[in-house]
């Protein structure tokens, strides 16, 4: 997984399709990141922050009971144990340091499930920056707890009220806001998508997941995993963990999308949110609304590097239903005492479904976040089953 170059291309995908007003800001961000990423001082400051504040390295945990039940060796990369409860903090601490280095004083972000919004609000508090988070009105209702967390951290949460009123629309509003406030504001984009340099920038900031997991797996088992899997909405945790293994041809990479938002599975190439990628759209090119139980994966597109990995066959992409996800969500709690976020429960749902194919194999799964944020939503769906 290399540098996509000045045009930001991953094969046929990527690019920088933004209003003219934003082009200089994207160019400045790219230049600042190229400079920072080769600066040992910046790298050291970030890794110290990730360790002392973020809680890295996250552990690699070998499931006992669940491995036995599934008939395979299941390793969980525990991004759920990070500060703020997901992998999002890896990206946000890097972007906040970069924003400060560029002299920006405010962060604007979009959020789906609220995890990226919480992480951005956290970094803004840490660095004394202003913070505005756009969140779809529908998502604000199903993730009330995260809305309140963002406000507690001092961020302003603004509802996205057009379109499907979910993540896609929050990205639109964040881009519109940035067009107007580009002078002092950094757009802290939460996934490996959007205009160049974001897909590359976010992948580089998330590759710590894969780099750690590769070493940890070798320490634990003295071998590499057979399969690496992660959920894919925009695809930042997946691209992060895949980065550690993409150069090992024997390691199968599997991204798992929600059935109602399977951009790779059902999409066709298109251009939205600044990039060329697979996109769910109707027969004239209007973007379709994704439908998923998980606000974090409720996105009709996918990061362009995933589109490239799919087209070249290096990674494959599976889709799971909301019902399968709810079963997996409970399974991890019952067998391992870990309540996952609904997003990584997608990856586990695929592992569970594919268990025969995976029998005896070593499967590394990115547990990208914890499930506290989803408990209220799941209680509404499954409360009867648990006497609630």
């Amino acid at each position, binding site marked *: 997984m290399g540098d996509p170059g000045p*045009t930001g291309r991953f094969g046929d995908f990527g*690019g*920088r*399709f*933004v*209003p*003219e*007003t*934003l*082009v*200089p*800001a994207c160019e400045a961000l790219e230049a600042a990141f190229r400079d920072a990423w080769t600066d040992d001082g910046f790298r050291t400051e970030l890794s110290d922050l990730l360790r002392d504040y973020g809680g890295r390295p996250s552990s690699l945990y070998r499931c006992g009971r669940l491995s036995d039940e599934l008939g395979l060796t299941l390793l969980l990369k525990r991004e759920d144990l990070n500060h703020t409860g997901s992998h999002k903090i890896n990206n946000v601490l890097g972007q906040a340091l970069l924003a400060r280095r560029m002299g920006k004083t405010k962060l604007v972000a979009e959020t789906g499930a609220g995890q990226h919004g919480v992480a951005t609000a956290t970094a803004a508090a840490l660095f004394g920056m202003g913070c505005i988070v756009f969140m779809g009105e529908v998502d604000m209702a199903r993730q009330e707890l995260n809305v309140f967390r963002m406000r507690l951290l001092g961020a302003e949460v603004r509802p996205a009220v*057009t*379109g499907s009123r979910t993540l*896609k*629309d929050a990205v*639109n509003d964040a*881009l*519109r806001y940035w*067009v*107007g*406030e*580009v*002078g002092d504001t950094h757009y802290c984009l939460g996934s490996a998508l959007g205009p160049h340099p974001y897909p590359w920038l976010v992948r580089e900031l998330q590759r710590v997941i894969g780099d750690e997991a590769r070493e940890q797996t070798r320490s634990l088992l003295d071998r590499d995993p057979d399969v690496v899997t992660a959920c894919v909405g925009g695809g930042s945790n997946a691209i992060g963990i895949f980065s550690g293994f993409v150069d090992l041809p024997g390691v199968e990479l599997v991204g798992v999308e929600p059935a109602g938002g399977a951009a790779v599975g059902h999409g066709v*190439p*298109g*251009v*939205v*949110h*600044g990039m*060329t990628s697979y*996109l769910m*759209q109707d027969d*004239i*090119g*209007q*973007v379709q609304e994704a439908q998923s139980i998980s606000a974090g994966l409720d996105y009709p597109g996918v990061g362009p590097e995933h589109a490239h990995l799919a087209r070249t066959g290096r990674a494959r992409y599976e889709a799971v239903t909301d019902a399968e996800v709810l079963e997996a969500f409970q399974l991890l709690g019952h067998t391992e005492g870990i309540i996952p976020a609904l997003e990584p429960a997608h990856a586990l749902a695929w592992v569970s479904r594919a268990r025969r194919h995976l029998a005896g194999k070593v499967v590394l799964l990115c547990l990208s976040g914890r499930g506290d944020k989803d408990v209220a939503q799941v209680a509404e769906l499954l409360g009867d089953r648990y006497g609630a």
Partner: protein
Amino acid sequence: MAPDADVAPAAPVRLGLESTLRAARDAGRKLLVPYVTGGVRDDWTELVRAMADAGADAVEIGIPFSDPVMDGPTIQATSEQAIAGGASPSSILAELRGIDAGVPLVVMTYYNLVYHPGDERFAADLAAAGVSGAIVPDVPLEEIGPWAAAADAHGIETVLLAAPTASDERLARVCARSRGFVYGVSLLGVTGERATLAGTADAIARRLKVATDLPVVVGIGISTPEQARQVTTVADGVVIGSALMRTLLDGAAPEAVGEQVAAFRTALDRG
């Protein structure tokens, strides 16, 4: 430019965008380019005629997209309304084909609606509908190549946006690739009405007038005839969008929008 009498009635007359605007400018006229979202209501083509009759020099027609990132709440609303009413690129172009408004028509849309059928096919469809120019605001200079090649081949004049954030060197490159006119972005922000004219409006107009001999037409946030008059003390013209679409969303008839356009015309002519 007189319509060609030999053209069969079914084939739309296509006026040159740059040639029309240059001729008007060189005759001392300030340029007025009103915007309407195609399909926003059943009789939207009446609006195009009303705008032309009220003194527009060209009319900008939005082909609505599901995710218009350069548009504020008003044009988001007209876009949603048009899409909900069944408007599509093909329905809008079919209706434009018979319109014969007497002024050049410029389509504004987002790139996915071009990319989906393909650059070549979309450019051919615009030309067949009698459209003279195109504005695709999410395709900046670095990405314009494939579309510009197809548009050039079909005689579609691709108008580029020029923003206050650009360096002088970048403005020069934008102007060099722009056709028809150069669209000066008056402020940092998306489309929508503003109470006052941004200070950046005058600045971008001045910078563009130095950079190019193309007609310099400024838009985004120009909301009142007085603001339009102020801008055109430097710029060659203005694009008026959200202010007109707001009138429409408030339920006004096409004639009322025509009167509003006439008021802008009067202000520009008064100078």
